[in-house]
């Protein structure tokens, strides 16, 4: 059985206490809201894309430690990435949370601290909420649901 400290690692607690890039970016090239109807958590993700590269990402919202920390770490991880790299990162991150047999993708970097979430299936949607919102923003949709 995993320990609580595997889930609530110090990095996660830190990002929850002091979320990075916790701001609306105005103007921005893309933005979308994410909503988890199960728990009421909501997040709004703002992105500035130049060419095919992400210049900056910000977010605002209200959620649990897992969703807040995940959103915060996501914003840091995406800066300077191409859209293709961002999409690949999302896929790797999603696999990290749902498939323990898959080897760790080295590109995940700090995102790997969220690996503990996979032992808490009811919390996976918390960790992916901001990513779904990002995905919706880049696809030109205004809303994403984690359902």
């Amino acid at each position, binding site marked *: *059985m995993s320990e*609580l400290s595997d*889930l*609530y690692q110090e990095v996660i*607690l830190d990002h*929850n206490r002091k979320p990075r890039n916790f701001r609306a970016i105005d103007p921005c090239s893309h933005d979308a809201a994410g909503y988890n109807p*199960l*728990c*009421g*958590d*909501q997040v709004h993700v703002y992105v500035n894309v130049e060419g095919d590269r992400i210049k900056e990402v910000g977010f605002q919202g*209200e*959620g*649990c*430690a*897992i969703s807040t920390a995940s959103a915060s770490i996501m914003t840091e991880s995406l800066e300077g990435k191409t859209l293709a790299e961002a999409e690949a990162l999302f896929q790797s991150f999603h696999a990290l949370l749902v498939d323990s047999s898959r080897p760790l993708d080295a590109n995940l970097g700090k995102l790997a601290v969220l690996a503990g979430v996979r032992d*808490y299936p*009811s*919390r996976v949607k*918390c960790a992916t909420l901001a990513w779904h919102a990002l995905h919706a923003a880049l696809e030109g949709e205004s809303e994403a649901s984690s359902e």
Partner: protein
Amino acid sequence: MTTAETHPLATETATRFDVDRVREDFPILNRQVHGKPLVYLDSAASAQKPTVVIEAVAACYREDYANIHRGVHMLSEHLTTQYEAVREEVRSFLNAASEKEIVFTRGATEGVNLVASSFVRPRLRAGDEIIVTGMEHHSNIVPWQMLGEETGAVLKVVPVQDDGSIRLEDFEALLSERTRFVSVVHVSNALGTINPVREMIALAHERDVPVLLDGAQAVPHMSVDVQALDCDFYVFSGHKIYGPSGVGALYGKSRWLKEMPPYHGGGDMIRSVSFEKTEYADPPQRFEAGTPNICGVIGMGVAIRYLRSLGLEAVAAHEHDLLVYATERLSQIPGLRLLGTAPEKAGVVSFIMDCAHPHDIGTILDRSGIAIRAGHHCAQPVMQRFQVPATARASFGLYNTRAEVDKLVEALEKVRKLFA
């Protein structure tokens, strides 16, 4: 607020209600969760089942099963008798005047929908009004909104005060010439508030407005007398009174049920069928189309007998003692805020913490073996009222103990330490 020491019923309980003995009736309480003994504080979501209920449902399938209301064979006749005996059990439980006033349903939600569809819909015109409170469960909001969309009727909402109560004068002020129906929660699942339903019903009846009470959270915790309340309809669910899920009952006054059209069409709800004309059965069968959850109803009957054998007053006093004790202990935790502190409350403690989101609280408690609910409790308007996205909620059943409240407090201290 009265303290556990001075509450007259609480001291009486200590001698009359033997919780250790009661706990032996619930086999699930012996199991462990994440290596810790289960502390089940989520009975408001669904209550655990005593052995007598589990065995009754199993025996129904193992020894007695057949379809009811049909066969001439022994099994069918025998089970029909048992099934109809539950109707009498429910009648007696609610003190209804006649067992013809008891309709078996899939649960409280279906009861509300049945009344909305068969009783209220035909009476509605555009601009008519239905009154609910701001603390309703979604099951007592959405059916009325659906009717509103269809007919142009409007929902009026009694505001909730800061302590989670409502004021009778606010309710009275909403009653108007256009009010066609009142549908109110007896006990709030999200806040624990016990509403002044008797007075509300009297006020509504002064204006000839019928009233439905959603009793899902009330019947496990207090004795209910539908004749004394004079409510027109009352709904509850079996799974919250230590019975199976998927069954429940609707009480409706005979005079209303008789004039109501069927809810669902099908077998068992008819007198005769031809392609030219179908005659419906009398209530309650008129509202019971199709083969029901037979063994579930049998189990619900056993659950009611079990609950009554313990004495609803003793159960209420025991749970009140837990509520008072938990309220005292949780109030002492720094950064913890209770939502719902109405003077009249059932065994529900809803709270938020400065340092942690309810989901995080729920996860951490779960790892200590403690099951609570974290979320909006199917009462999102309540969350909006108190401007929180969600709450953590501990709710008490007859098998909970003060020692379990202590474990809850201990685990909440762990939450504080982790997120400090």
